[in-house]
């Protein structure tokens, strides 16, 4: 078994001599964690709004002022008619329309309620939904103000209401960055530990050195293990840098403790690097392996609940998500970081992650062929 000592020595020397990898180990997590949380953010600001004021009353003017005061909206135009406003949307000048009916003030006073119409351009559905929600909130606030003015406390029972026809609810999380930080750590570890081992082995195939190794008595288990140990080490280093960054820059500490995070991460890193080996076993060239990796990495990242909640996916996509190791690692990361779950709380996803690890690595060893 001392053979593996020489193999590991070789892998470390080669990795450290690589012109890019050692720099990436530090640069990658720092870059991703400094930039992504600010850039990848579903908060929407500066929505361009057209307001069609058919009422032209003091009440409607007050509502317009309120919209104008909000940081979410920029009033693009106050056209005379709805078709005109719609034309602005079609031309891309406006994102959302608020139409105030002509009977607005009358309705408010006499009928105790009124309707306004909101039309959002939902080509960018997030912007459409959020614009709608923000506008609804403004209108609701306005309605409460009016309520206070028109009806003193004694007459609360007959409070007028403004009914908003579309009723969307969207969790515009104010701590979106905090929610995404654990996910970015998962992303970094997946990319580094999933891709690098695969590229390493395929490079040996392309230069022909793997053939030399295959004519020696080295067992495939030793060979693969020696290939992976440096990447596991790199993974742990990257993880540690990431934990540190998240604390330093965003002040976020895992309320469930680092121990659980390291255990889960080690299991995941071993699993995902096994996946990299499987890819390399089925590719003869770097081109093939890069293509396969991009294909699978895209799937496992998009269908893991990293950006979008799994519960919102169609049944078939949910099925894929539950067969995706990233899903469970993501779950553990968020539970420990945000909810403060301890090791015993995450035993189930951790167990599933462990099964993935065994399955992927067994496959990796079995599919590696010393003899073609």
């Amino acid at each position, binding site marked *: 078994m001392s053979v593996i000592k*020489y193999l590991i020595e*070789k892998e470390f*020397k*080669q990795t450290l001599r690589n012109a890019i990898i050692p720099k990436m180990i530090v640069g990658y997590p720092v870059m991703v964690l400094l930039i992504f949380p600010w850039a990848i953010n579903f908060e929407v600001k500066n929505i361009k709004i057209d307001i069609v004021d058919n009422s032209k009353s003091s009440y409607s003017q007050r509502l317009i002022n309120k919209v104008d005061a909000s940081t979410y909206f920029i009033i693009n135009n106050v056209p005379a008619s709805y078709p005109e406003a719609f034309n602005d949307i079609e031309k891309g000048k406006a994102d959302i329309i608020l139409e105030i009916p002509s009977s607005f003030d009358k309705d408010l006073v006499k009928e105790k309620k009124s309707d306004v119409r909101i039309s959002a351009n939902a080509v960018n559905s997030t912007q459409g939904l959020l614009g709608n929600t923000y506008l609804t909130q403004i209108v609701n606030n306005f309605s409460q103000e009016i309520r206070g003015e028109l009806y003193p406390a004694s007459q609360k029972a007959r409070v007028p209401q403004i009914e908003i026809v579309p009723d969307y609810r969207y969790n515009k999380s104010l701590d979106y960055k905090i929610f995404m930080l654990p996910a970015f750590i998962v992303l970094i570890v997946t990319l580094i530990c999933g891709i690098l081992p695969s590229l390493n082995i395929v490079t040996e195939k392309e230069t022909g050195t793997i*053939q030399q190794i295959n*004519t020696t*008595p080295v067992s495939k288990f030793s060979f693969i293990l020696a290939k992976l140990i440096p990447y596991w080490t790199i993974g742990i280093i990257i993880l540690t840098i990431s934990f540190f960054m998240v604390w330093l820059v965003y002040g976020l500490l895992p309320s469930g403790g680092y121990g659980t995070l390291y255990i889960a991460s080690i299991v995941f890193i071993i699993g995902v690097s096994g996946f990299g080996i499987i890819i390399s076993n089925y590719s003869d060239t770097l081109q093939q392996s890069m293509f396969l990796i991009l294909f699978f990495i895209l799937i496992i990242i998009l269908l893991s609940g990293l950006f979008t909640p799994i519960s919102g996916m169609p049944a078939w996509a949910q099925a894929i998500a539950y067969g995706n190791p990233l899903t469970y690692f993501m779950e553990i990361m968020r539970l420990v970081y945000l909810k403060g779950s301890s090791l015993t709380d995450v035993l189930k996803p951790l167990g599933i992650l462990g099964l993935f690890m065994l399955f992927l690595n067994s496959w990796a060893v079995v599919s590696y062929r*010393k*003899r073609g």
Partner: protein
Amino acid sequence: MSNNDVIKVSGLTKKFGHFTAVDHISFDVKEGEIFGFLGANGAGKTTAIQMLCGISKPTAGKGTVAGYDILRENEKIKRNIGYMSQKFSLYEDLRVWENIRLFGGIYGLNDKQIADKTEELLTRLKFEDQRNAMVRSLPLGWKQKLAFSVAIFHTPKIVFLDEPTGGVDPAMRRQFWEMIYEAADQGITVFVTTHYMDEAEYCNRVSIMVDGRIDALDSPSALKQQYDAVNMDQVFRKLARKSTRAE
């Protein structure tokens, strides 16, 4: 081995789909001999070597290398052979001593043995000052000498050399063959492919492959007599002319 045959194969065949790269070849190689394995490009030499080294599974046929079955005991064969592939395959991003150390370690030598043998090897090659050189920076001829030295570092029973002198200048080829003779003197059987017919003359026996089959096998002098040729080059041309396989 009682009968002194370190390699003994019969009916060895390798097919890739409908293409038969190696077509039922049979031959023996005796212990300590320098066996030349000749053939035109695409005749199937490399495939045949890969089957003998246990990195390609034969489609049909049987045989033994270093006393082990090529079908079932291919991993045991690997303990007893050295292999130098057509493509230079030491690690270019490792230093000279690091490559030697790696392959020494792989064949089960310990740190002390490796250090001693490395010293001895570098002195013999007059290569001491290149000890710390990155292999990538060496000239081709030196790379080949180093690759050969690494292939026999663990004193295997047989060493397989797949076109070891391709692209190397005549002076360096001469030195390379001196190294081959030294290895043979140590009792290592040498199985070598080449395109240089002058090198074929240095072998104890040669086989000539045409279109995946062995068409001739004997000592160079016997072959010259048989084909009424003045040198191996003529023998080769007479045989290779029969080839129907496009390069």
